[in-house]
């Protein structure tokens, strides 16, 4: 058994942080928090603290990566050395490389890349404080940073995970549940179309559990979507136009 595993993750029908099964952690999103970046987003999701910044469309370096018919999108997910319990050595690890890849692919779906041939759109995501679920939080923040930079998109991507903990399907796992639970299913969606552009799972789920978790994650992502839009409205004003 793993050292540090709590005896139970669900006590009296509540999760260890007091949430109900289908309850999100508190989320706070703010667009436009950095001066230098073309677009940016600060996001708190439970105890996660994340900043995302977007640069571009801009010239591609190194040049041979440029594509004649479209922009390239590059998202880089990184954790600060002090964002986790034991100091993370600087430099990319294998997990960060994979996360960068799936986040990039999830966003490629919504950005109109063909409008900017031979260009690069770069999104840098820095996890300053991590508490489980940084993948969905990062994708959510990256979407807002892209929008804040004025990059044309068909929609935002909103993300949320569901999972299985002590036999129950629950929404939005925090760190203890992530480490010691039975499954984690992060989902990224394009709310307007219902398309799923990020989907991973590790753990163990039956067919039925999977369906239940998937639906719960989608429901969570739709809540996150509202917060994303609110953050953009707060910056750009939205009473008389925009999303509403």
């Amino acid at each position: 058994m793993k050292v540090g595993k709590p005896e139970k993750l669900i006590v009296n029908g509540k999760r260890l942080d007091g949430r109900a099964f289908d309850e999100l952690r508190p989320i706070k999103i703010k667009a436009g928090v950095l001066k230098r970046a073309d677009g940016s987003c600060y996001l708190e999701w439970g105890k996660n603290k994340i900043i995302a910044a977007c640069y571009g469309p801009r010239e591609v370096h190194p040049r041979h990566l440029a594509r004649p018919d479209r922009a390239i999108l590059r998202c880089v997910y990184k954790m600060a050395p002090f964002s986790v319990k034991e100091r993370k050595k600087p430099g990319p690890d294998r997990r960060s490389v994979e996360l960068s890849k799936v986040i990039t692919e999830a966003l490629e779906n919504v950005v109109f890349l063909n409008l900017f041939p031979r260009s690069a759109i770069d999104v840098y995501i820095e996890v300053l404080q991590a508490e489980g679920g940084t993948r969905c939080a990062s994708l959510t923040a990256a979407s807002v940073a892209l929008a804040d930079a004025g990059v044309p998109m068909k929609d935002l991507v909103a993300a949320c995970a569901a999972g299985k903990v002590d036999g129950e399907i629950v929404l939005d796992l925090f760190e203890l549940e992530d480490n010691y639970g039975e499954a984690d299913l992060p989902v990224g969606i394009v709310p307007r179309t219902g398309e799923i552009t990020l989907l991973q799972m590790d753990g163990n789920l039956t067919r039925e559990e999977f369906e239940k978790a998937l639906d719960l994650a989608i429901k969570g992502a739709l809540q996150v979507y509202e917060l994303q839009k609110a953050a953009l409205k707060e910056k750009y004003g939205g009473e008389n136009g925009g999303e509403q």
Partner: protein
Amino acid sequence: MESNSIVASIKKDYILTVLETGKRVDGREFDEYREIEIIRGYAQRAEGSALVRIGNTQVLAGVKLSLATPFPDTPDEGILSTTAELVPLASPSFDIGPPDERAIELSRVVDRALRESNALDLEKLCIVPNEKVWLVNVDIYILDYDGNLFDASCLAAISALLDARFPKLEDDKIIYEEKTNEALPIKNKPVEVTFAKIGKYTVVDPNLEEEEVMDARITFGITQENELCALQKGLRGSFTREEILDLFDKAIEKAKELRRYLE
């Protein structure tokens, strides 16, 4: 892995035209795997190995055992480590150098299936708690790339683990020259099933031509109890909720087929 614009778009049109007729460019059904062959014990300096062929795709996995200190948070468990190398021998698109994001994703998705299905009983790989455990390295070597590396690599990894025998241990030193008859403590035999989405069509076990034009990819890791132990969606395209649930059902069926090759 995208081909360049015009050629790619002509290729894609052609492949879609064939798919519209209900067939694939190599004549297969949408839900049909290419021919599969598994040769265990291919690399005999490994403690276990397997060469897997799915059509023209060839993947060799080798298992090496050594001794290590356990991780502090799992003091009574052995260690499983999975890597994949896209060696440049296998494709003009593979480069010399450290593993790129494709190789890292591949190894991590295979690792996930092995780990989350508890394919290896890690507690049985403990020798002295806190001090000494078996380290099991699964190295996946892509030799010929003609599509669907996930499924081939997962088959190769689990087959190599099944093939592996402990070497003799003498006074804390491994005598690699002498293999014992003892197999590794295998608890589950997960397999991965990958689908490619091309336009509105979804096919299992994409070959290279199909991968070059696919919009999205999805891989299901399925345990011998038909549960999901890993899932990975890839590329720019998307799936709907319904497509995913439908493909999960198909994956369970295909997994049964694949698992026959593990007996």
